[in-house]
């Protein structure tokens, strides 16, 4: 018959580790190239601009016209204007935080894809954890209530005898 494929756990594990290491090395390399290409793609970026930093900043800014794109990805007129503002502010030596604040001052926190924690958005940040806590609390209460309601009463000798007799009958019925 066919060749017997023997399962060799050690060899498989070695292969998995090598694959994982290769991927870990390759992914940042690949994504780094992609970032550089993305950021360099739009025309009109003056030479000498730190395109990687430009991409990092604009990827966290929402395009107000096409709301599910970042300013880095969008080719809408306003997105290009805002990207040019970021380039200008970078040229003035402004920090990332200052540049983002410039956008928030004009367009509100909505422009940030990663807005800071505040009272108005606090429920969004805390809500999921709050739901988990409530869920765990409800589950524990339910389990405790069930455990209390159903006491594990031991069977008396007569009950056990009756149960076993019924079990014997049932199995003989099935086999006959």
């Amino acid at each position, binding site marked *: 018959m066919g060749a017997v494929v023997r399962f060799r756990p050690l060899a498989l594990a070695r292969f998995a580790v090598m694959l994982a290491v290769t991927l870990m090395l390759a992914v940042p390399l690949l994504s780094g190239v992609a970032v550089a290409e993305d950021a360099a793609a739009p025309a009109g970026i003056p030479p000498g601009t730190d395109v990687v930093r430009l991409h990092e900043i604009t990827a966290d800014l929402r395009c107000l016209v096409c709301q599910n794109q970042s300013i880095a990805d969008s080719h809408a007129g306003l997105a290009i204007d805002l990207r040019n503002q970021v380039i200008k502010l970078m040229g003035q030596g402004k920090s990332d935080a200052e540049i983002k604040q410039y956008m928030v001052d004009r367009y509100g926190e*909505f422009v940030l894809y990663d807005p800071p924690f505040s009272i108005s958005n606090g429920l969004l940040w805390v809500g999921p954890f709050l739901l988990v806590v409530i869920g765990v609390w409800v589950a524990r209460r339910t389990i405790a209530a069930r455990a209390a309601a159903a006491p594990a009463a031991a069977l008396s000798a007569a009950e056990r005898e009756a149960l076993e007799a019924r079990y014997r009958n049932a199995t003989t019925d099935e086999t006959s």
Partner: protein
Amino acid sequence: MPSNLRVILPLLVLAALAVVFVIGLQGDPRKLPSVFIDKPAPAFSLPELSEGKPVVTPESLRGKVWLLNVFASWCQACVAEHPHLLELAKQNRVELVGLAYKDEPEDTRAWLAARGNPYSRIAVDRDGLVGIDYGVYGVPETFVIDGNGVIRYKAVGPVDEGFFREHVEPLLAQGGK
């Protein structure tokens, strides 16, 4: 937990969620709250569309209620609101200032010549930088600015008959402050 509550509670939660979703779906996600409400109108100094007129600045309009209407010849929705702006100009109760946003002055002039000019002054914002300072993200937008130079309201999209009555009349009734 009583058993009737056990049945009713999930239904109540569902009903509450439904109410939240219905409210959430009412608004237009494109209409963003402006961060400039009750803040001073950002300063600018822009050339007038009509050559020879002095530059347009918010300071020069201090002391009266004025509207800053962001428009452009390439803007379709501006055509829709234009008759309302002409009507406002005819009533002549507030100063209507235009901000020609990212538009070639010749195009703006031709557009206004064809449709009528409702503006008392027109600031030319060719590169749209003043628009950015005002948080403009679509055209048309209309800012209501009071006598103290504070932005009181911003309309996103074309204005209609209700706009003046709801957002400008009350301000005029208070003396523009």
